[in-house]
Structure formats: C-alpha cells, structure tokens
C-alpha cells in the first residue's frame, strides 16, 4: 500500500485541490496525513482558508471520523538549513552560509539540489516514526510540480548524478530514490476531459514508466454531467421543434406560437445543446484514451460554485468512496 502520494497534473486541472481532497480522504476514520506543497505558491493555505503556511508541520483540518490533516509548505532554503542541522549540526555555520548567499545559490541555481531537498523532506516525513515505533503519518500527499516536469522532479538521482557523483548529496539522492521507486510511492495525475491535458497525461505516464517511477491513478477532475446526447439534440431540432416549444410554453415560459416567448427560446437552447453534445462526444473519446492507459480512473464532479471548504470536503468524500482501501 503506498504511503507517499505524489499528485501532479497539467496547469489548470486543479491538482492542488485534488491533492488536498486526497489528503482529507486518506485522513478519514482517525488517520493522520501530511499534505505538502513544494512550489511556494501557498495554494494549500488559500484552499483551507487559512493564513500562509510556514515551514512547519501544523494541523489544518479535521477529517470525518476524527482524522487529522497536517500541512507543510516545504521551502528549499529552510529544507537545506534543516538538512545541514540534522546531518552536520551546522546551526550557525548554516546561517553564515545563508548570509553569504550560498543557500540561495545551492537551492536555486542547481535544480537537482533543490529537488532532492524537496523530495527528501517529503520522504523523511514518510519514514518518520514516533516514540511508539509507529509511523507519525499514515500517508503523505504531495502537491507536486506539473506533469511536464514531474518525472524530472522525482528523478533526483539522475539529476544529481551528473553533479555529485559521490559525497553526502549523492547519498541523500540515493536514499530518496529508493523511497520514490518503491511501492510505497504512487504518482497520480490529474486531468480534465480535454485533449491537451489528456495528451499530457498519456505522455507523463509514459515518462514515469520509462524511468521506473510508480504511476498510481488518473483522476479526472471537473467532470460535468452529460444531459443530452447528439441524437437527442438532433431529434429535438428536426422532428420535435414545435412540440418542444409547446412543452416550454406549458412550463410557463410564454407562448409557443411563432414569435412567442417560448418559441424564441428554442433556437438558443438548441444551440447550447449542440455545443453540449459536441463536448459530450469529445469527452467520450478522451475518456476512452484514458482507459487505455491501464491505470485506475477516478472522477470528481465539477463544483459549479467554485471550490470552497465545503466543496473540498465533498470532493474528499467522493474520492474516498472511489479510492481502494
């Protein structure tokens, strides 16, 4: 059973929302999860309607059944200082390095180093055990970089290999890689039922597989209900136009005769229905492509009022029903 859930997806697909919903879902019934953010956007804080997260694990939500979601915004600079302190007891020397710009330099200019610090911190949380010998967190959910960068981000070993062939950074990368490539980890991709995100999801999964990283599930977000299909729309437009106008009129929307209020609604409503049917058709193709990927598919409905805290809990409940326990 995986304990580190890495959630990625094309920009605009709602990966932060899905990561948060998953953290809530996995925390249900007295479990404890850690939701981590690695891109410094404070998306989690906005979603949970709380103040900006510091570099500190803190409880941000209670899940149904007494579970807890904790959150952490991993900042590469702090992660490096943390790392220096943990492994080298470099408290003050670390601060001196920071003053000189060395920390900034190391974490920003060399992407491999930055990523190994970010993933390293998440892996540390996965492995951390309390005094009772049990894991501190039942699972860790990471709001990760977008699909286009995810394989590179996770494949720290490869990135760092060229930079540090031996030494402590090299060892750290090896340790992180062992966790990331193990069944403890699952990389989930969030997509919409649109061509570009679906294409990117397929490419992303191929890349993950090529690099031996464990692809988890595909989560289709913002699914809209299919109300009318193409054939129904065509029948309404051709055979039953007058009858539809009459029905609209019966429902109290004005006259059904030519030029009546209800009659004048028919064309614009049919136009919308045609667009809808076209979209339903495109979505069908996209969904078929996603099922060819051979991964579990989960679906989350579109919340028409946008995402607020209540919506997030609804998505979490929905995800929980679908998630294999």
């Amino acid at each position, binding site marked *: 059973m995986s304990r580190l859930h890495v959630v990625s997806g094309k920009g605009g697909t709602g990966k932060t929302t899905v990561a948060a919903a998953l953290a809530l879902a996995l925390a249900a019934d007295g479990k404890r999860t850690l939701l981590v953010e690695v891109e410094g956007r404070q998306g989690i804080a906005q979603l949970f309607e709380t103040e900006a997260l510091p570099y500190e694990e803190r409880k941000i939500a209670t899940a149904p059944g007494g579970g807890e979601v904790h959150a952490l915004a991993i900042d590469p600079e702090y992660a490096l200082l943390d790392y220096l302190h943990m492994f*080298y007891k470099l408290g003050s020397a670390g601060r001196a390095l920071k003053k000189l710009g060395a920390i900034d330099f190391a974490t920003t200019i060399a992407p491999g180093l930055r990523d190994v610090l970010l993933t390293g911190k998440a892996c540390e949380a996965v492995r951390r055990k309390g005094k009772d010998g049990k894991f501190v967190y039942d699972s860790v959910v990471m709001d990760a970089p977008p699909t286009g960068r995810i394989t590179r981000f996770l494949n720290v070993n490869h990135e760092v290999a060229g930079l540090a062939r031996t030494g402590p950074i090299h060892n750290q990368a090896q340790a992180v890689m062992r966790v990331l490539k193990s069944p403890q980890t699952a990389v989930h991709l969030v997509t919409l039922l649109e061509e570009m995100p679906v294409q990117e999801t397929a490419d992303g999964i191929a890349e993950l597989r090529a690099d031996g990283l464990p692809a988890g599930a595909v989560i289709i977000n913002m699914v809209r209900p299919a109300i009318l299909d193409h054939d129904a729309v065509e029948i309404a437009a051709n055979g039953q136009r007058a009858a539809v106008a009459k029905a609209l009129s019966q429902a109290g929307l004005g006259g059904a005769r030519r030029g009546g209020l209800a009659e004048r609604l028919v064309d614009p409503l049919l136009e919308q229905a045609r667009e809808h049917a076209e979209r339903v058709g495109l979505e069908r193709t996209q969904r078929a492509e996603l099922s060819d990927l051979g991964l579990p598919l989960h679906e989350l409905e579109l919340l028409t009022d946008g995402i607020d805290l209540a919506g997030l809990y609804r998505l979490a409940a929905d995800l929980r029903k679908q998630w294999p326990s």
Partner: protein
Amino acid sequence: MSMDVAPWLETDALLDNPQTRIVVCCGSGGVGKTTTAAALGVRAAERGRKVVVLTIDPARRLAQSMGIDALDNIPRKVAGVGDENGGELHAMMLDMKRTFDEFVEAHADPERARAILANPFYQSLSAGFAGTQEYMAMEKLGQLRARDEWDLIIVDTPPSRSALDFLDAPKRLGSFLDGKFIRVLMAPAKVGGRAGMKFLNVGVSMMTGTVNKVLGGQLLRDVQTFAAAMDTMFGGFRTRAEATYRLLQAPGTAFLVVAAPERDALREAAYFVERLGADRMPLAGLVLNRVHGSGAEQLSAERALAAAEILSMADAAMDPATAPDPEPETEAEPEAELDPDASDPADPGDGEENLADGGFVDRDSGKTQARNPSAADPDVSPTSADTSAERLAAGLLRLHAERMQVLGREQRTHDRFTALHPEVPVAQVAALPGDVHDLAGLRAIGERLAVPMERPQRAG
C-alpha cells in the same frame, strides 16, 4: 451586478499598428497563453504583417498546426497564412539549452566555450534551472528583435510558478553569476586550486571547507571551474539582462495578460497587472479566454430549473398510461446507489458504458445529496430511444440552467478583477466547445479576440 464596464481591448488596432513590434503574452498555466499567442500571430499575418511567434512549450498538436514539430530554435514559415495581404507567419519553439549554448559560444573564446559546455554543473544549470527558461526566452526575444527581420514578434512566456519568475529571472540569473558567493567559490580555482588556499583568509577557507563537506569535493571543483570559465561572461549576462529589460519597457512592446474567467487565474492576472505596473512595463490589456455566453440570457437559471421540474413531473405522471416506452423507470433523478460500477472505480474499463449518459442533475437538490457523476443511470437520460418533447425540453432547460450558473460565476470573478483594475482594457474570447489544433481553429480564436463578444444585458 456589473457596475464597472472595462474598456474593450482593440486587438486589431494593436496588431495593425506598425509601432507595435513585440507582443508578450503572460499569465498563469492552463489559461490558453500559447493558443492566444498563435492566434494573434495568424491574425496579424493575415492582416498583412510579417510576424514571428516564439512559443515556449506548445502542446504537440498546436505546434503541428503551425507546422513546427521540431524543437530547433529556427523560425519556420507557416504555409498558407497571410499570402493574400503580403503578410507572413513564422513560428518557432524555444530550445532552452541550445539558446544557452549559443550564448556561451558567442561570448567566450572557443577553448573556454568548450570547457563550459562540458562542465557538469553547466549542463545541469542550462537544462533545468528554474529561471533558465524565462531568461532564455527573453534572450531569444532580444536576438529576434536585433535581427529586425519581422514587423512583429509575438512571444509566449513559460508556465512560471508565479508571476515574479518571468520578470525577475534575468536579474536573478545575472546576480547569481555575478554574486558574492560564486566569487568566494572561485577564489581557490583562480589561484591554483588547493595549493592556493593558504593565501585566502581564514573565513573563506572555513566556508569552502564547509561547502566541501556538504556538497562533496568534486561538485565544488565543478562549480569552481564553471565559475572561473564563466567569469568573462558575467558582464555579458548583466548587460544582456538589462538590455532585454529595457526592450520590454520600450513603447513598441505590448504586454497582454491572459486569463480564464476563474478565481485563481484572475487573481494571478491581477497580480501580473500590478507587477507590470510596478516595473513600468507597457500593459495593453487582459485577454479573457473561454468566456461563456448564452443566446437566451433573459431566462434565469432559477426559472429554467423550475420549468424543467414542472416538465419532468408532467412527464412522469403521463408516462405509464401514454408512453409507448415500456420501461417503468422514468424518474428524472440519478440513482447512484443502483449502479454497481460506481463503487468500483479502480476498474479502468468500467466507464465506457456510462459515457454518453449522465443523469439529469437538479443543481438545487443535487447539492444536498451524494452524487457520483460517473454513475448516472442511463435510463434517465433522454437519448434517441426516449424523446418525448417534455423530456427534451426539460433537458434543454437543465443545460441552460447550468450554462447560466457558469455565466454568473464568470461574471462575478470578472467583475472583481474590473473593480480592482477598471482601467485595463479587456478582450473576451468566447469558449469553443472543443480544443484548438489547426489553423482554422486559430483563425476562429483570432476572430473572437478581435470582435467584441455579444453580451446582451440580462433582465432580472
């Protein structure tokens, strides 16, 4: 309700103006930046200008629609665009690493260039540094502008983590390579490696000692060699970064902030607008993509739903007696529990039968009940098998209600932006039902960018 009305962004006037030489499309990820850049390129070329579009990371089919499938840094002419009016469209995809390599080759002597290109630290930096893409996009823009072969350069920006990256990257990269730390690191290499350490003051040697311990000796040596080799280019970096920055501020440049009518995207857009203002960058306006409209805005979501309800009830009451359809199940409510597939989403094959048929969704009552969109019962959908006029009309009304809710939400987020930045001209681009991946699609988007969207005043 909308109180402020934003001025219309006159896209054609902007594209036609010979003084406009650079258009920069910026915005958060997933809002259609690249598509907007490509559509503007097609439109400008068909209006007679000689245009080059610089894309950063286009989706494959979008790139193919412009005939670029190679990431080779060379602008290629797009066939069949602008021929009638003497315009031309060229398109290219940025190859970040190659741009960096070319920069090194142009600014260092051959021997030094070879040393830099072979350095592992350089290879990591050039391929993936968080700011490299932004920096190289701007470097390429500077190069294209210097060639002066095009009337108009349209540039897409990288999908940055935040608005800051794109404007800050040139300065940041410059300041890193120019900074205190790299100078300290370089010191031993300059005076001949470890043998020279004794000439350094104690503080610095302690520092390099620490770095050595943490990073490992080989990495430190690579960084030192890299820094030493790059030394001659530091000035080059800074000068170029400053020149690009000034080019962006110049009157011939126009920034377009691209967004979708969603809360996060517009928040990011507002931030872009403020940031461009603070940096005195010339903002032309906001492009709001994927805006929904309706030809029946006079009918509110609430009335449409109420009417749909009436029709469904009438339909259900009539059905057993009059309908030729023998099926007894006719309630217009989804029954998620009845669908065995709903609880087994781990099976990737299960979605297929349910694809076409979602259930009727009453958004009002739907909020209080658990509903799985993938599990809608096919029986309740008005497909071709079941097409009483009442059902069809109810379906049309529910679709309309959904559309009006989307409209309302988009209008509210848009209003919030307008309240904050009433001075920013806006072009609203009506949503297309499908994706854009050919020239015809790009033309359609261009048309929508240029012609104000019809949005009649809503009654009640």
